[in-house]
């Protein structure tokens, strides 16, 4: 069985938010409802200054805290690793929203349920790349099967030694970030 994830090469990211918008379009999100967010941080003193970008979305964790705290099992992890919410049985308790260490669960006031990156589940099961991956004008994003050692994503992980966000929390995140020296 596949285990899906992303490698995001932050040495190419220019923080343009094409990923954010492609996700909003794909999922027909409300304005301000952001499932893929882009943060930036400035470091150094003029004239030696750098700005780094960091994109954050659901990490489709191996041990998703959101699923563990969900009282109705609305949040569940599929066999291919994708973490989804079943809106039909969600009771809107927001436990997942406060539990996610990546703040990747986004509350939708109108619907009364949380949302977040679905790794474009219905696209990827049909062999189509996630919307954010296909949009990125810097080609910084790679989607694939982390369990397949021959996949492009697995080879990238070997070659570029990307980091993950807070793996020390034991969540087993599946978003990998290439951060490079510059």
């Amino acid at each position, binding site marked *: 069985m596949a285990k899906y994830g992303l490698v995001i090469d932050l040495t190419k990211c*220019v*923080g*343009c938010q094409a990923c954010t918008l492609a996700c909003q379009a794909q999922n027909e999100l409300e*304005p301000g409802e952001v499932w893929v967010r882009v943060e930036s941080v*400035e470091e*150094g003193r003029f004239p030696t200054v750098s700005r780094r970008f960091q994109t954050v979305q659901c990490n489709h964790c191996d041990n998703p805290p959101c699923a563990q705290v969900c009282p109705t099992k609305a949040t569940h992890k599929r066999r291919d690793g994708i973490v989804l919410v079943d809106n039909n049985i969600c009771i809107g308790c927001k436990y997942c929203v406060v539990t996610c260490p990546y703040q990747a669960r986004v509350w939708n006031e109108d619907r009364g349920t949380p949302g977040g990156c679905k790794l474009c589940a219905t696209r990827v099961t049909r062999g189509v790349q996630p*919307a954010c991956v*296909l949009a990125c004008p810097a080609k910084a994003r790679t989607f694939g099967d982390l369990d397949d050692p021959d996949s492009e994503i697995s080879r990238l992980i070997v070659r570029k030694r990307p980091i993950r966000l807070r793996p020390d929390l034991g969540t087993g995140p599946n978003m990998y970030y290439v951060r490079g020296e510059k």
Partner: protein
Amino acid sequence: MIGKTISRRKFLVACGATAAVAAVGGKLIRQGDVVHAGELEGITPKLVPTVCGMCDANCGIIAYVNGDALYKLEGNSGHSHSDGRICPRGSAGVKLLYDPDRLRYPLKRVGTDRWERISWDQAFEEIGEKLKQIKEMHGPQSLAWVRHPELADEWDQQFMKAFGSPNIFSHLSVAQSARQLACRYTLGGEPIMDYRNSRYILLFGRNHGETIFTADLQSLMAAKEKGARIVSIDPRLSNTAAQAHEWIPIRPGTDNALLLAMMNVIIREKLYDADFVAKFTDGFEDLRALVADKTPAWAARITDVPAETTIRIAREFAEAKPACGVDPGHHGPWGDLYTNSFQTARSALILNALMGSYGAKGGVALPPRPKLGKFNFPATPPIKIGRADGVGEGEFSLLDQTVGLVQRLPEIILNENPYPVRALVVNRFNPARALPDSKKTMAALASLDLLVVIDTMPSDTAILAHYVLPESTYLERLDPVAVSMRLRPEIAIRQPIVAPLHDTKPATEIIAGLAKAVGLGEFFKFSVEDVIRARIQPLGLTVEQFGQKGVIRGDEGAAYGVPRFETPSGKIDIYAERLKEVWIDPMPNWQPPLVEPDGRSFRLLQGRVSLHTNSSTQNNAWLNRLKPDNDLWINTVRAARLGIANGQKVRVRSEAGEVVVKAKVTEGIHPSAVFLAYGFGHEAKMQRLSFGKGANSNALVVGRTTPGSGGAATSETIVTVERAT
């Protein structure tokens, strides 16, 4: 293949094994190595290729259409402007189509902020009548026309020719006319860069991360991955500079000094391609003499770039030749930012010549054009009177008469000098936000006897108009052929994805309607289809077949090999004799910027943000929420001296006007400058989301016209900054 829904069986045949995985239900479309598909449960969207219109890059995109509704947009991997990718503004095109604040029907102004819905017939009749009266009273030249040239630009030009007025303007003199003129008189064409194969890329103010030409950003990052070195020379740490290997925060307006000093090193150390220079350039000995005293130490005093940095990058750059280049476009220091922009552009083009990079893989190319047929527009009588802005004679005799000097229009209108201009048509442009000195511009617009605005949104110019004519968006109309400007000859079609949602028309029909109303219908007896048909005739295609394919492309690599330089010498004109006619130095000599801030003031810089196109997208629901306003970038040290904290409101003043805006205190800007993104500060209440948010940078910009090259030199503006509380 794109555009036709193909059967699953055919798809499997076409794509082999991958398709077996890919085609679980629904229909999928493969273009190159990319598979597109809709996601809606139980629904199979139709995929239609078209051309984006969120900015003027004209990227090939694919629209997902669900019944009669647009679901989403993706990049078309079969088109060389998008290369399968889509920028944030491109994705947000859906929200333009469905914007509740869009112009939905023709409007007539009946008072301040009071509008009446009228029919198209009434609009054409009344405007036609007024145009005829104004023509009778003041002559045909009293009508001016301003547009952001679109795919259908020939309609705008045809109208003015038929009407008999020379006064047609575009935005180019506030954007990049200095660069265009420099390209014409140095190379005979406008070059692009082959980033993907390049080994050393110098970006002078070029900001791919925020202007976003998706194919270029991809190629730039692909080159970075392959080991190319990217150096950004920019007074501001743009998002592109942030991803360069090196950011050189140059003093704004001094780029030519750095370029000349690099050439000093390269010539002195004989690092140039002597063979290329001998064969393909004219004036090298003049250049040697010119740069002899332009040493890195000389440049360091002007640019704030240490001499050793200049020497190092000159050597590294030459080491990579010919797979290297100074990025030759777009705005930046050789757009129309400074009075010295023209010579800065010339120096950049000449430095590339020293590297022999024209036509080299990884160098700089002149885009190959497809061989298309010609449509003969009905002939119009010659225009006898000269342009109101002086273009075409004297110091402006080298400038393009279809471009003009739009920044001069307000004073022409207000002073009726050299003659009255009493009527103005504005098509897909927003002078109230795009031209310098907004106060004066808006006063001029308000003083006209007739102002007609053609647009999709109620812009700040539209609210001053007597009549507003709503244009169908790029997703609802057919436009003439889009010709690509990248490494291969290529054309694409923009076609209606959905039927017009409201009582709108394509600009082509609006313009033809206006022509008929003023009795000039005989000059518009043709349709968009007629023009497309004539242009694609050599390809043996029908318009329908073109629509199904979406893109027709020739071979990549057509751009390689030294191009033909269409200059007087047939070579790259380092020395350009013709410039003497307009009193411009035929050599790219150093000339300081016109104004210089002191310890108490700043130079005002403007630029783009990734989420907006000039002033046209601020009301887009998705983009507005992510980037509702702009802020004033100010260096930490200067801000501290003025007691300004991050996020605090500041008052910014220039001799043209003042604005109040939030401060962004940052290490990422040269201390002598402040930066304000343009396009914000909307005053049109009909744009409910963008109204009153952020500040209009052009309220501060001082209106100027550079002698000879005509550029508006928008960064030759000095401002003071103080706490607003």
